């Protein structure tokens, strides 16, 4: 009897000390062909600390992972947490499919400026930022030298164009690698330039539609000029294809994320420079994040929140950001604030380029119908790439179409 009593007391103690009494089976959908070791480590530790909890990490290929989560949710069988592009958060939130994220104020302080904007709708955080990237301009110095121009950062759009034109005219390669395919990256690249020209899409304070503006017109006009010095048929190109051209020395420069160094050919003589400022603004960049979203209706949301937090903070997050075994991304936190000394980007000029622009950068606009928003932008961009219409008309039309999304 005594031993049974002790066992029961012991059980109660253990139960009391853990956060939740319920056993739970968590379903974690992660993008990528295989489960990351670092993720598995966090999950194993989590399971150890939370008895009765089991976590099934499902690694879904990049092409289909987001859709899978959405399909499951639409079918009434949501995952517990899932890796989603932050652009989807508003649609998920509006359709009551996810629950707001619970980010501690310490962590909030440590995030790079603007990160939380990418997951915030009307003051509420809807996701745990998981992967972050900014963009910069890569220039092939060999081609620049061949063209007879100095391989250095253009400081404004005119210099950018001149450099591209020189490469285009004096070498076999095209000057600038322009993307125009119906992909999210096409819109992203446009935003990179827009944000470097003092432009906005949605006013972060008022939520008003700011798309139809002088800044936007200037940016589209830049595209109009660049078509003349870009590779053939930009509307069939998305970023990874432009990267291939760049690697093959067919294009002098293009906009890419921090993984650029890793995917360019060894021995590529290149420099990375901030996006040059347009006539109406300062050099900025686009802040894109992917998040971990906690789905509603899984029955164990509180545990899910804990897991999401565990994955996206401190060491675990660092393991993802670092190029050494991770993905090599722009750091999502100011890691020194989290107590990690000598982070991978410290003192490295390469990373400086990607980090310095964060303050002036803008987020991807968070709207419910993000696919339609993408269509609005792509339509406008392709319009000028194909010479279908004038800059003024295209921007006006885009502005009106965007209105319907707000």
């Amino acid at each position, binding site marked *: 009897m005594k031993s049974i009593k002790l066992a029961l007391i012991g059980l109660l103690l253990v139960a009391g000390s853990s956060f939740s009494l319920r056993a739970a089976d968590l379903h974690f959908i992660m993008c990528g062909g295989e489960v990351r070791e670092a993720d598995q480590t966090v999950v194993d530790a989590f399971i150890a600390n939370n008895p009765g909890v089991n976590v099934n990490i499902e690694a879904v290929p990049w092409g289909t992972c987001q859709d899978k989560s*959405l399909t499951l*949710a*639409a079918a009434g069988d949501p995952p517990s947490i899932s890796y989603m592009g932050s652009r989807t958060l508003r*649609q*998920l939130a*509006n*359709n*009551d*499919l996810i629950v707001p994220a619970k980010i501690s104020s310490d962590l909030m302080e440590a995030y790079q400026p603007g990160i939380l904007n990418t997951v915030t709708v009307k003051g509420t955080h809807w996701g745990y930022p998981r992967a972050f990237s900014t963009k910069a301009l890569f220039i092939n110095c060999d081609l620049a030298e061949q063209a007879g121009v100095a391989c250095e950062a253009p400081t404004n759009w005119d210099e950018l164009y001149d450099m591209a034109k020189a490469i285009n005219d004096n070498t076999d390669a095209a000057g600038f690698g322009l993307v*125009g*395919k*119906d992909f999210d990256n096409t819109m992203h690249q446009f935003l990179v330039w827009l944000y470097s020209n003092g432009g906005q899409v949605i006013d972060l304070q008022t939520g008003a539609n700011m798309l139809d503006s002088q800044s936007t017109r200037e940016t589209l006009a830049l595209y109009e000029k660049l078509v003349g010095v870009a*590779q*053939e*048929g*930009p*509307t*069939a*190109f998305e970023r990874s294809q432009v990267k*291939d*051209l760049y690697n*093959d020395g*067919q294009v002098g420069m293009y906009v890419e994320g921090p993984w650029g160094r890793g995917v360019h050919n060894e021995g590529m003589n290149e420099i990375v420079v901030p996006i040059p400022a347009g006539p109406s603004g300062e050099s900025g960049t686009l802040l894109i994040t992917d998040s971990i979203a906690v789905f509603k209706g899984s029955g164990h949301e509180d545990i899910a929140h804990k897991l999401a937090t565990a994955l996206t903070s401190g060491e675990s997050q660092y393991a993802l950001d670092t190029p050494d075994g991770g993905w090599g991304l722009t750091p999502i936190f100011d890691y020194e604030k989290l107590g990690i000394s000598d982070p991978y980007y410290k003192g490295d000029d390469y990373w400086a380029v990607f980090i310095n622009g964060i303050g002036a950068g803008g987020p991807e606009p968070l709207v419910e*119908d993000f*696919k*339609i928003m993408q269509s609005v932008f*792509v*339509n406008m961009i*392709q*319009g000028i790439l*194909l010479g*279908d219409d004038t800059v003024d008309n295209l921007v006006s039309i885009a502005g009106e179409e965007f209105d319907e999304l707000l």
Partner: protein
Amino acid sequence: MIEKKSKLDFYPYFLLAPSLIFILVIVAWPLIETFRLSLTDARLGGESYVGFENYQELLEKKKFHRVITRTFFWMFLSVGLKILLGLAGATLLNAKVPGRALFRVLVMPPWVIPIAIGCIGWLWLYNSHFGLLSGIAQRIGLIDGPFGFLAYKKPAFYSAIVTDVWVGTPMVTIFFLAAMQGVSRDLYEAAWVDGAGRWHRFRRITIPQIMPVIVTMSLLSMIWTFNSFEIIWILTEGGPRGATTTLIVDTYKTAIGNWKFGEGAARAVIIVALLGIFSFFYYSLIKKLNKFEERK
């Protein structure tokens, strides 16, 4: 006689039942459900009844009208080419030349492989910088620099047509070939004896004899081509700027891309309606032509 109706009341239905049940559950029910959805504004989060609003919106948009005309143009052009190429191919393969067995087998691959895989092959061929077509054209001096087949509106459309024709031609060819081989030799011999040349024999004997097959394959092909989705989706996803967006692409983009099930369903219903009306007219036309032929 075998069929004594009073004794066999249930037997035919018994034979049909499995297939019927299958179709009813898997096709008829979703069809009804699609129609019901088209009367709502169903989205990812929920739905509510909106009557014919979806249809009204669609029929008012000029963009949608263009999608419809584009779809019909796509269908007629692609099917026309398939039938012509099918006839040409079948005639060639029907010729009694050495090696014909091998050639017939070699015609099969586009039909046999999953469409998605063939389309990826074409995607590569059309690539402006690294594709074979652009590369060869440059080599032989046809064009100055690389050419993006899928980057411009008209070229993208016609490139998609070429791929669609490529996918559909083998099946048409083989069916035509089989039909041609079923034509009685006596007919040809009689004509030959009378001094008729090859072209004459083809026009006056072959074509009329296989006409039923031509008619049926045309209709089948038209229906499949109208709904041809994977080819366009893999090559261009409906771009650039909607140049290759046919009804089925538009429907998919709306329903799965934008998660607007109600609006997508409305488009789906319109597809079915259009095809139904079209088939009806097609059959009436054929019947009229047949009657005309008989009277001659």
